[in-house]
């Protein structure tokens, strides 16, 4: 079984590459075992107590329809926060993506610096950014918008510079051979090629932001999260169920809209 040498009838010897699968499997088992210990994971608890999960879930059903009128305002706040943050973030992402792209910026240092900047920005947990923003700008939608804005800049920025770097630079070369400046070659050669993907990324990030915006209220950054945390605190699960229902319907609707738009873009 462990003999990896094969001799063919012609006398040629072929040596098989050792498979890495046993090693990887062993490593995974060890890591899982460690992680199970550290997190105090227990299947027994899960089996004995699992039904507790459904206690809250059952409390949510049926949702309390009477709560609906109180949801609209925070819902619109959430949508507005995500829209504004995504739009402004996506706009700022373009110059940053250009400065981070190796094939547009000649200096390795400049491109590297902006890449690093975008990475750091992406690493900061949005909830932490939101919390800091509430300290600086006060409680409310402004803080949430800033958190979403920062995340969108980093997300759209990263995907866009990757897209730019993956472009076939032949077109760029061709336009330079026509006597265009680098900026003009970007405007006419690169922009039309990345625009659909860029718009699509922006829409995608808007969808994600909408979901995320619902959490931001938890730290006081405005929107649905505020009433969500309030109702959860009061253990009024029927109201929580109503909030979640509205959120699911809204998110599905906007997702559907944005997917239709994205399909048209491709």
């Amino acid at each position, binding site marked *: 079984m462990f003999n990896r040498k094969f001799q063919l009838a012609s006398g040629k010897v072929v040596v098989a590459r050792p498979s890495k699968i046993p090693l990887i499997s062993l490593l995974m088992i060890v890591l899982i075992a460690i992680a199970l210990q550290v997190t105090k994971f227990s299947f027994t608890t899960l089996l004995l107590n699992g039904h*507790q999960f459904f206690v809250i879930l059952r409390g949510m059903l049926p949702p309390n329809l009477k709560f609906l009128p109180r949801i609209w305002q925070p819902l619109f706040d959430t949508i507005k926060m995500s829209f504004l943050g995504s739009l402004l973030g996506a706009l700022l992402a373009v110059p940053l993506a250009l400065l981070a792209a190796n094939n547009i910026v000649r200096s390795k240092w400049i491109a590297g610096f902006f890449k690093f900047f975008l990475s750091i920005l992406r690493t900061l947990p949005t909830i932490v950014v939101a919390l800091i923003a509430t300290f600086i700008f006060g409680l409310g939608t402004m803080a949430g918008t800033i958190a979403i804005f920062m995340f969108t800049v980093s997300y759209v920025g990263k995907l866009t510079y990757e897209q730019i770097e993956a472009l076939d630079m032949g077109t760029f070369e061709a336009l330079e051979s026509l006597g265009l400046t680098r900026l003009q070659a970007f405007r006419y050669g690169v922009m039309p090629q990345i625009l659909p993907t860029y718009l699509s990324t922006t829409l995608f990030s808007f969808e994600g932001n909408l979901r995320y915006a619902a959490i931001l209220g938890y730290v006081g950054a*405005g929107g649905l999260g505020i009433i969500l945390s309030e109702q959860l605190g009061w253990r009024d699960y029927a109201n929580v169920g109503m909030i979640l229902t509205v959120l699911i319907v809204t998110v599905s609707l906007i997702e559907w809209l944005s997917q239709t738009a994205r399909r048209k873009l491709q």
Partner: protein
Amino acid sequence: MDNLLEAKLTAQPSKKRQYLLLVAVILAVFAWSLTAIKFRAPDDGGAKIAANIIRGILSPDLNLLWNFTSQGVFYLLFETICIAFLGTIFGAILSIPFAFLMAPSVVSRPVYILTRFLVVVIRTVPALVYGLMFVRVAGPGPFAGVLTMSLTSIGMVSKLYVDVIEDLDRGILEAMDAIGCTTWEKIRFGIVPQLIANFSSITIYRFDMNLRDATILGLVGAGGIGAPLIFAMNAYRWHQVGSILIGLVALILIVEIISNKLRAKLVNG
């Protein structure tokens, strides 16, 4: 001849209207969105806090950073990795049946539409809510975090798995049919090898994301580094915030580099 060119010129399809409409819609929604935001420059208090935050991050609490007990940054990060790791693995396993039930090429239309709707619901309910539910099951602590991450991973992972399933190269199945393989053999030798690399790559990607999202778990007491971070922030202990953030940012950057390398290797062979 010139007439022909003239005719062609006037035949140019005009997209001006579409563009104008699009711009008008975006501007209108933009204006509407502005109504929700009360713009205010940070007052003196805000500016002071901002200065404190920056000072705190630049001069982190080194005792906390280089503390190797269960209260130190290293252990908390390690616990966070464990939560994200297990959550990702369980989530990835749970996603496999979901993905097949969402694939139009595998199941009938009503089934995949229903499953897709279910996954949208799972995906949209904020992680916090799951966190609270699982704290009831497992008590506060990392165990609840693992359960939460397992559930929140399903949404994105299963969606990406579906794309892989739909992109399977069916030519190989035809070739195996021609050799005379059974259905089971086709799955084992024709489909699994195709899926495994891409599935692993997606799973690693999700691990990356879970590590970032793990902070949220701290809000509901589901373990990891989130809770100490948020406590420190609410108590204005910026030096501690600094040391935790530095640890977290460094960890996520390192994991991202490793995961990108691994994924490139997986996909390109």
